[in-house]
C-alpha cells in the first residue's frame, strides 16, 4: 500500500489539499511511495509541488519512489523538464 495514492485529476484545484498531504509525508521523514497509476490529468502546479517535495526529501536523505506512474504523469514531467528531479 502506497503512502499516497493520487487521484485521476491532479490539477491546480487539488494542489492545496495535495500540498498538505505531501507536507505530512515530509514531516514523517520516512521513506514514501506514491501511487501515480490513476493520474489522467496533471498540471504545472502539482508537478511543481512534487518537485519541491522530492527536493526536500532528497535533502533529508529520505527515499521517495513511484508506484506505477501513469503515462500522462511521466510525459508531463518530461515536458516540464522535471523528469530527473521527480525520478520519473
Amino acid at each position, binding site marked *: 500500500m502506497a503512502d499516497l495514492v493520487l487521484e485521476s485529476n491532479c*490539477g*491546480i484545484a487539488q*494542489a*492545496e489539499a*495535495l*500540498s498538505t498531504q*505531501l*507536507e505530512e509525508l*515530509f*514531516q514523517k521523514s520516512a521513506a514514501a511511495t506514491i501511487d501515480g497509476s490513476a493520474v*489522467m*490529468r*496533471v*498540471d*504545472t*502546479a502539482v*508537478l*511543481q*509541488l512534487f*518537485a*519541491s*517535495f522530492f*527536493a*526536500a526529501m532528497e535533502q533529508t536523505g529520505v527515499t521517495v519512489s513511484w508506484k506505477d506512474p501513469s503515462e*500522462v504523469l511521466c*510525459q*508531463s514531467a*518530461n*515536458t*516540464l*523538464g*522535471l523528469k530527473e*528531479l521527480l525520478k520519473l
Partner: protein
Amino acid sequence: MSIDLSQFHQVFFEESYEGLDVMESALLNLQPDSVDPETINEIFRAAHSIKGGSGTFGFNDVASFTHVVETLLDEIRGGVRNITSETVDLFLRSVDCIRRMIQQHDAGEPCDIPEAQELKASFEAMLAGGSSAPAEETAEDDKSVSEESSTPARKGWKIYFKPELDVLRTGNDPLRMFRELESLGSLRVTADTSALPLISAIDPEACYLAWTLELDADVPQSDVDEVFEWVVDESDLKITPLALDGGSTEQGEPSTSGSTPTEEPSDDTTRLTEGLTAADSEQQSAENPNSQPAESATATEQTAELKPAEAKPAVAKPAAAASKTEKAKTEVSSIRVGIDKVDDLINMVGELVITQSMLGELGLDFTIESLPKLLEGIEQLSQNTRELQESVMRIRMLPISFTFSRFPRLVHDLSRTMGKKIELKLSGEQTELDKTVMEKIGDPLVHLVRNSLDHGIETPEDRIKAGKPETGTITLNAFHQSGNIVIQIIDDGAGLNKARILEKAKQNGLVSEGDMLTDDQINDLIFRPGFSTADQISDISGRGVGMDVVRRNINELNGSVEVESTEGEGSVFTIRLPLTLAILDGQLIRVGNHTYILPLISIVESIQSFQGMLHRVVGGCDLLRLRDEYVPIIQLASIFNIESDAKDMDDGLLVVVEGDNMKVAILIDDLEAQQQVVIKSLEENYKKVDGVSGATILGDGTVSLILDIAGLIKLAGVQRYEYKSVSGGDDYAA
C-alpha cells in the same frame, strides 16, 4: 464538453472595433518629435488585445497581421526604433486593414484583403532593419525579405521563460504551452528550480519555476510568440534563434518576445529557401486554427489530459462556420451601457413593483373611501412610468464622441491629400444622443466636414494672402438646446460666395431675374438638388455638391440643417436633431373626427384669427401673409380626404410649421393637448404612407398618425421658392 466560442465572437468584434478606434485616435495624437510613451503603450495594448483575441477565436489572419504591428510597436516603446511620420502612416494603414479584416469576419465572409499581405511585408521589412518606405517596394520583394528575416539561420529557437508568481492562478499553464511547442518540433526543456521553496513553505498555486527551452523546428518566430502571447506581459521571456552549431546563439543580445532576430544568414539561396519554407509553415499555421493556444482556464483544464496533438481547441473552425450561418439569420446590434444606467433602471423597476403591489392590495378590498388612495397610487404609477421611460431612454444614449472620433483621421488624411493645413477642434463630445440618431447622422456629418475641408478652408498660400494664419480650423461642436441636439460644423475658410451662388441659381432657373432673396435664402440654395448636377465645383464654391442629399437625410431624422456664412470669414452649418427617434414631443390636433400629431419642434406659431391675412390663389395653394412673408396654406381635410368641422377657412385654425426649410400653415379644426408619444413605425407595421412619418396609440386606445411636414408639403405640391420671394407687391402667385 467543448465551448462554442462563436458565442463570444460579437463581443470580440466590438471590442476590436473599440481597440482600433483607440489605436487610430492615439496614432493621430502622436507627435514624432516628442513621443509620449504612454501613447505608444496605449496603442500597443490595443493591438495586443486584438491579437490575443483573434488568435483565441481562430481569426489567424488577423492575429498574424496584428502580431507584426505589435512587434514594431514593441520596438518603438522599447526605444529600439524611432517613430517617424512615415511609421505613423503605416500604422494608420494597418489599422484600416485590421478593421476591414475584422469587418469581413464579422460579416461571416471570407477574409480577402490583398493590402494585408503588402502591409505585413512592409512591417516585416522594417523589423528586419529595412527602410520605413514600403511604398516603393513590391509586395513580392517585401515578402521575401520578411520571410528571410523571420526565419532563423539554424532551424530553431532558444527560449528563456520565467513567468511571474501568479501565472498559474490566471489559468496560464506552462505545461500546456510547452506541449504546444512540442507540436512544432523537438523540444528540450531545462527547469530552473532554484527559487522553489520547501514543501512546508510553498504556495501551491504560485509558480516558482523558470525554464530554458530549445526548440528544434523550422518555424518563424511568430509561431513561438503565439504560444506565449497571453503571458508575454507577465513573464520574463527571451526568444533567440539557435546558432548554426546547434547550440544557443552567442551573437547579439537575446530579443524580447516579439522582436525579430537580427542575425543575417550567410547564404542567399539558403535564406530564400528557408524563407519560403517558413512562409509555407506560417500559412499552414494560419490555415489551421488548431495551432492556436486555448487560453481560458476552462480550456486548459479540458485539454490538459490530452496528448499535445489532441490538446488543441477544435472548436475554432466549426465556430467560424457556424458564425456565418448565424450571421445570415440575425443582424444583432448591441450597445455598451454604463452600470449606473442599469442600476437606475433596476431601481425604477423596483419602485414600479412596489406601486403595482400597493394598487393590487387596494383593488382587493376597494371601497369608495379608498378613492384618494387609488388616485395617489395612480399618480405614483404615472411618476414611476415617466422615470422608467427616462431611464430606458438613457440606456440608448451615447456620447457623440462615438461619431466625432472618426473625424481626426478624416481631416488628417484629406488635409494631406489636398496640401492644406487644418486643425480640427472638437467640443461637446460628451453630449449624449440616441444611438439610432447617431448612427444615421454619421454620413451627413462626414459630408459636411469634407465640404468644409475641401471647399471652405483655403490653401495655406491663399490664407496667407488673405491675412489669415496658414492653418485653417474646423470645429465640430455639439450641445443640447431645447430638448434637441445641435451639431455645428464651423470653419474659418473662405465662406460662401453669394454672388456666384445667385448667378448659378439664375442660370439653372432656380431663381428668377427679378427675385430678391435674403442672404439666408441665397445660402440655402446650396441645398437645392439642381446645384449638385450643374457645373459642380468649377464655378461656385462647390458647397452644393450633394448637399441636397445631406438635407434629405437630416430631414428624415426629423431634423434640420441650415448654413450661415460670411465671405472671407467662414461658414457655420447647424444641424438640429431630436434626441431620439423613439419618442416625440407632440401637439395633438383635430380635424373632424381625426386626431393627428404634429412634432412640437416643427411648430412656429398658431393663428386663430386670420381674417384679412388670407390670399386666394387660382390654381395654387392659398397663402397666409404673415408679417413680411407669404406662407402657403395646407388643408389637411382636403389632403387626407376627410370631413372637416370648418365649413369655411375662416372657421378653422392655422398652425404655422417649419419643415424642409420652409414654412407652411396647416389648417385644422382645433388644437388639443401636448404630450410625449411613442413612435411606432408605419412602414414596419403597415406600409409607408405619404405625409405621415409614423403612428402612435393615444390614451383612449385609438391610433393617431404623426404628420410628416416635408411629406405634407410635397403632397400639397407646394414649391419652396415661389412664395418666398416677397418684394413688396403681391407677385406671389406661381
